[in-house]
C-alpha cells in the first residue's frame, strides 16, 4: 500500500499486519456504511475509511474520529460481500495510530539496569511494541 507520493505508508502496513485484512479486496459497494448502526455519527463512513486506505491517505485517517467511534458490533463484517472484517480493520487502525503517532517514548537505552531487572518481561516487550518506532 503506497501513499499518493508513491511512498509506502507505515500506518497502513502496520494496520494490515495487525488486522490481517486487505483493503484492496473492497469494491466500494457501501454495504458496511448502510448496515452500520452509528454511520450518522461518523466523520468518515466505513466504506470511505477503506477508500482512504486504498488511496494511502494516512494523515487524514489518523485525524478521523471514525475508528474511535466504532463499537465493534461486527454488523459490517457480517454483511460484507468481500469477506472483509471491518471491525478488525478498525481495531488495526486504532493500534497503528497509537503506535505511529508520536516519536519514541523510550528506548532500551533509557532504562537503568535496576529497572530492567524489576520490570516484568511481558510489560517490557509490549511497551516497546507499542511505543517504539
Amino acid at each position, binding site marked *: 500500500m503506497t501513499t499518493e507520493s508513491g511512498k509506502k505508508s507505515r500506518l497502513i502496513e502496520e494496520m494490515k499486519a495487525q488486522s490481517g485484512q486487505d483493503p484492496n479486496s473492497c*469494491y*466500494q*459497494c*457501501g*454495504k458496511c*456504511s*448502510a*448496515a*452500520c448502526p452509528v*454511520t*450518522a455519527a461518523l466523520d468518515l*463512513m466505513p*466504506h*470511505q475509511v477503506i477508500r482512504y486506505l486504498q488511496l494511502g491517505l494516512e494523515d487524514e485517517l489518523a485525524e478521523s474520529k471514525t475508528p474511535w467511534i466504532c463499537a465493534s458490533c461486527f*454488523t459490517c463484517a457480517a*454483511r*460484507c*460481500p*468481500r*469477506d472483509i472484517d471491518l471491525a478488525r480493520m478498525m481495531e488495526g487502525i486504532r493500534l497503528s495510530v497509537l503506535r505511529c503517532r508520536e516519536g519514541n517514548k523510550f528506548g532500551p537505552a533509557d532504562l537503568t539496569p535496576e529497572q530492567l531487572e524489576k520490570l516484568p518481561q511481558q510489560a517490557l516487550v509490549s511497551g516497546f511494541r507499542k511505543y517504539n518506532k
Partner: protein
Amino acid sequence: MPRTGVFICHCGTNIAGTVDIDKAVEASRNFPGVVHADEYRYLCSEMGQDIIKKAIEEQDLDRVVVGTCSPRMHEATFRKAAAEAGLNPYLLEVANIREHCSWVHKDMGEATPKAISLLRAAAAKAALNTALEAPRLDVEKRALVIGGGIAGIQAALDIAEAGYEVDIVEREPSIGGRMAQLEKTFPTLDCSACILTPKMVEAAQHPNVNLLTYSEVEEVKGFVGQFDVKIKKKARYVDSVKCTGCGICWEKCPSKAPSEFEMGLAKRKSIYVPFAQAVPNVPVIDRDSCLYFRKGRCQICEKECPPQAIDYEQQDEIIERRYGAIIMATGFDQLDPTIYGEYGYGQHPDILTGLEFERLFNASGPTGGKIVRLSDGKPPKKVVFIQCVGSRDKARGMNYCSKICCMYTAKQAVLLKEKVPDAKSYVFYIDVRTAGKGYEEFQRRAAEEYDVAYLRGQVGKIFPEEDHLVVRGVDSLSGRLIEINADMVVLAAASIARCDAPEVGRLVGINSDSYNFFNEAHPKLKPVETHTAGVFIAGACQSPKDIPDTVSQASAAAVKAIGLLSKDKLQGEACTAEVNQAECSGCLYCEAVCPYSAISPVEIEERYHGGTLKRTVAEVNPALCKGCGSCTVACRSGTINLKGFSNEQILAEVDAICLQR
C-alpha cells in the same frame, strides 16, 4: 536394430536461442539406432515436413524422433507427414524441447544437455514403438438435447433443419423453460411469449423433432457416436393421444397446489398445464396434491373428460435409444435470498425476487398483469430494486457476476413506469454492467427518460413500518445515508446452476466448475465442447447468460453436433489399454478405477493339467477406452499396458536419461 532419424527444430529463436542445435544434432547421431540426424529452422512448415518425408524415403527410416514444441501443438502435423511418407504415424515420437526445455531455461550451457537428454529418451522410446491402428467407429445419426428451454429448442431446430433426427428431453410438462416465464425481453422490449411460442410450436411440428416432455434422462452409456440412453417418461395419468387439450379437466379439478411456473405466487390445479401456451397442450396430474391419489376419491377429471383421456393406471415408461451426440441445455435457477436476513425476503409479501416481479407483468400471471402489492392489492408508488443479491458476493453468495440483472432491472423499471406512471423506481447498484448491443443505451434511457434513480451503494436493512417498507441504504458517491419508504422491494437474486447439475453432468460424463456450472473444453476456443467427445453444452447451464448469447451458443452447439452426425465413421483412440489375459489374476481393480467404464470381466477357458479351467479376467473395450492409463497404475501384476505408452517404453525413457553418465 531400428533405423531412427532425428530432426531438430530451431523454432526461430524459441529453441535455438537457448539450445545449441548443432551440438544436439551431433549428439543425436550417437544415440543407439540413430542413422540420420538433421535440423531445420521451422520443422512444422511445408519445407520442414518435406525434409522429414524425404529422409524417411531415402534413408529407409523406420522410426522418427522430432525435437520440437509440445506434442499438443504439432504431434498431429508430424504424424501426418510420416504417414504420407508411408510410415505408421505411431512410430513417430516427439521430444518436447521447447516448453519443457528452451522456454524454461536461460542458460544455453544447461539447456543444451537437457535437450540432448530429452532427445535420447525419445529415441529410446521410439525404438520400442509399434505400429498402431485407430479403430473406426459407427455414428448413430440422431441427437439428444437435454433441456427444452430456448437453448434446447434452438439447438434441436438447427439439428432438425440439417436433416437429422433429434429428441428433446424436458423435465417439466411443457417446453419453454425460463424464457416462457418472462414478460418482455431487453433491450427491444418484444414480448417474450410472442417470439418464443412460434419456436415451441415449430419444434412440436417439425418432422425431425421428437418431444419427450415430463421426462428425465436416467442413464447414459456408450461413447461418441453411440450413446445408449435410458429416458424415464414420467406418468402424466393422461393419454397424450386421446387428449384434445380442451381444458375441462383443470377447470373442474377441485384441488390446488402452488404453481411452479408462477414462482409460487399463484395456485394451479392438481391436473394442470403449467401455462396457457404449453407445448404439448396435454395436462399432467400432480400425485402429491390430487385428491384421488391422496384419498382415493374425487375422479372428477375422469368423469368430465370428453375423450376419456384420463388414465390413473398409467406407469412411468423407460425409453431406450441410441444417439450420436448429446447437447446439454439444462438452464439455471434463481438463488433463494432468504439467506440475506437484512433484506427480509420471505417475511413480507412485498419483497420479491426479480423473476417473481416479472410474473406480475404477465396478463395470465398471478395479478392478471396488474402491478399491485401482494399485501393489499394497491399499485406501488415507490419501488426499490437491489442489485447483486448473492452475485459478486464471496462471503455468502456467488463470486461471479450474474450478467443479466443490470439489464432486467432496467427493463422492469421501465415497464413499471409504463404500467404505473406515477411510480418512482430506485436502483441500488454496485456497478452497472450493460455490455451488449443496445444495452447501454437502454439503461441510460431508463435513468434519463423513465426517471429511474440509480443509487451507487447497497442496502443494509429493510423492515416494515406501518404500510410500507423502510429501506436503509447508502449512496457511496455522495457519502450519504439514504432512507426510502418503499411500497415494494425487488431483489435481483443471483442466477445459479441447477441444484442437481453435478449429478446430471455425471450421467453424461461431463464435469462442473466450483459453482456447478458445466465446464467447456476451452474457455475461448472450445466454448460449446466438453472434455467428453460428443457432448456439447449450451445456454445458462454453462454460465449465466442472456437470451441472445444463449441462442448463439445453442446454434454453435448444434453445428458441432451436426458436424459429428454428418460423418460416416469416427476415428477412435489408437493408444488404448490392453490386458495380457494369461497373466491377469482377475482382481478387477482396473474395472473400479476406469472412468470410462471401458473394462469389464470376461470368462476365459485355459488348459490346466490336461483339463480345461474357467476363470475370470479383465477385458478392455477399445472403443470406450480413452487411454488415460489409470488401469495400468492400478494393475497389481502390471499386466495391463497402454499401447504407445507401455511400461517398457516409459522405463526405456527413464533409463535413457538416468544411465547416460
